[in-house]
């Protein structure tokens, strides 16, 4: 067993001779042992170091063994504590076990008894570690860079993304807010031969038309008032890399036109400039809008849409892949443990049920925020029900509305989605006939989401 792998045992006993002899005996068995004389010292040793087992004397001046065990379990609920005592009574033994002791030894104990108990603990610990390792290995299969999923559709997307990454094709990513469109774009970039070149992200919705124009194309010195120096645009900065245009559905018709020209001719001019600059970056665009509908409404150019939509990826919302909630919860906990320096081991069963049942209008991003907050307020090393704070379903970002009609519309859309737009099954689930359902679909202008038909 290497030093790092050594099982670490803490002995707490007020008698020096007990500490010395027990430590020596355990050390001969290859364990790392530290012995202290009081509960207070034991608690101070608990921080910063990992312990596998505590052997605690029941009768000690000040804090006794059971009090110490209670304090320890407040910080580390899973710590294995063996209570040792010279004055055995059935009462104290029962009390110790009830309070969560792993075992109860009467001093002096049989060497075989303690050897076997510790061996059992060590074997159990090995199994736990092995299990953790295997789970991590398994997780790798469900990963694409920072994205993680068990959902069949998502795994297909991961596969597609890996294939697409090798090419230079333009990609259009669609999906609700918080589903991870930028993460997917980054993953495609990281998996591509362009990984060493920059990944430049532009949020198109956050800028006014003229600002976005200069942000994308850059400008020459003196191109307009305030343009004191030459500025390179994101298109130029992303040379050989990837340019990610987020919320592409929000750009003006004029910019759509400019962008279309860039995509067609693979070159552009800085604002106020005459020099033609060719582009070598791959474009990935994303939107949470229904672009097909925007085209119908005349808000989005069909030709730009088809230019962008060479490869189309639609990320399903979290409510359509509930099996990912526990996986994502573990993933975020692991991530925030590192960031916050915490040792949260997971969420309680009740808390997990609440998380799985939630609708997640804000998708994985909302889940991440909820976990982050829960980990900040969690008192022990397990996130429990009170730590999880969820907005009531009507106040999420994708509000279903409050009028009866809005609720009806949202509910019909939900049921249709659940039944893959199978009208017969949806009508059955809603308890109405097919004609009524058709009428309601028409009335509410509901449309099947997904990749629009190719030209």
């Amino acid at each position, binding site marked *: 067993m290497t030093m790092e792998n050594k099982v670490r045992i803490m002995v707490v006993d007020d008698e020096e001779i007990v500490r010395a002899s027990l430590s020596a005996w355990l050390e001969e068995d290859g364990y790392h042992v530290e012995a202290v004389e009081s509960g207070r010292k034991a608690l101070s040793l608990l921080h910063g170091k990992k312990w596998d087992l505590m052997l605690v004397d029941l009768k000690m001046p000040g804090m006794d063994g059971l009090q110490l065990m209670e304090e320890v379990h407040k910080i580390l609920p899973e710590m294995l504590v063996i209570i040792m005592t010279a004055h055995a009574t059935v009462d104290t033994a029962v009390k110790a076990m009830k309070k969560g002791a792993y075992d109860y030894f009467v001093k002096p104990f049989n*060497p075989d008894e303690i050897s076997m108990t510790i061996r059992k603990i060590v074997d159990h610990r090995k199994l736990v570690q092995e299990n953790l390792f295997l789970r991590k290995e398994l997780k790798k299969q469900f990963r694409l860079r920072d994205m993680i999923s068990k959902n069949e559709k998502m795994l297909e997307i991961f596969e597609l993304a890996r294939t697409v990454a090798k090419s230079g094709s333009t990609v259009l990513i669609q999906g609700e807010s918080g589903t991870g469109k930028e993460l997917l774009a980054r993953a495609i970039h990281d998996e591509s031969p362009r990984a060493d070149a920059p990944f430049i992200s532009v949020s198109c919705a956050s800028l006014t038309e003229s600002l976005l124009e200069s942000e994308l194309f850059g400008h020459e010195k003196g191109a307009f008032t305030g343009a004191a120096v030459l500025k390179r645009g994101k298109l130029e900065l992303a040379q050989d890399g990837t340019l990610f245009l987020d919320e592409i559905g929000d750009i003006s018709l004029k910019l759509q036109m400019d962008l279309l020209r860039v995509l067609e001719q693979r070159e552009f001019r800085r604002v106020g400039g005459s020099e033609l600059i060719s582009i070598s970056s791959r474009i990935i665009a994303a939107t949470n809008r229904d672009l097909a509908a925007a085209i119908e409404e005349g808000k989005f150019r069909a030709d730009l849409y088809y230019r962008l939509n060479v490869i189309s990826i639609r990320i399903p919302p979290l409510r359509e892949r509930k099996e990912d909630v526990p996986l994502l919860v573990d993933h975020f906990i692991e991530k925030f443990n590192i960031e916050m320096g915490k040792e949260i081991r997971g969420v309680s069963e009740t808390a997990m049920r609440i998380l799985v049942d939630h609708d997640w209008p804000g998708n994985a991003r909302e889940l991440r925020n909820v976990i982050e907050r829960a980990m900040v307020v969690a008192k022990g090393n397990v996130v429990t029900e009170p730590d999880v704070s969820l907005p009531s379903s009507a106040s999420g970002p994708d509000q279903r509305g409050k009028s009866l009609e809005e609720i009806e519309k949202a509910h019909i859309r939900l049921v249709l989605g659940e039944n893959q737009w199978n009208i017969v099954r949806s009508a059955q689930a809603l308890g109405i006939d097919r004609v009524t359902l058709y009428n309601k679909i028409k009335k509410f202008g509901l449309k099947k989401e997904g990749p629009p038909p190719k030209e």
Partner: protein
Amino acid sequence: MGEVDPGTLHWLRNEMADCLQATVRTMPSMPVPPGSFEARRNQYSSTRILKEMLGEVPQDAFKLLGVTDMDLCIPILTYVFGEAQLGGTAAVVSLARLRQEFYGAAPDRPLFLSRTRKECLHELGHTFGLIHCKSRDCVMSLSNTVVDVDTKGRDFCGQCRAVVSSETGRGRRE
């Protein structure tokens, strides 16, 4: 320590010299330290005996092995076959529980000598810095009962032997 059969000691000295490839000398008997007696348990504290022994290590000795007929214990264990300073100088072995008579059986001298040899090598092994070996064929494997002693190997395994050889080599140079 205290009264021990000279024949056993003589045999043991030859066995240790042979197995460890070292010069082994028998010291005159020293009394079992009176402070080590645990009246309530009618046993002797091996930890206290070890402490006393450390003051008796001759200048030219690399290791000191105490052999006693007294039943040994440490405060938290009902008994021990012996105790050693891990990576230190001294070790002590009790012969009391290695005899078949202790368990109400007929005396069996060859078995007793075999157990004595194993436990002495085992405790000395600890003074060479060895911890319990996973291999049941190795004399350094953990033995809490005489059954464990009887079923484990009589010598060091390859890895443990290598540590012992390098340590005894160092002892000779010093």
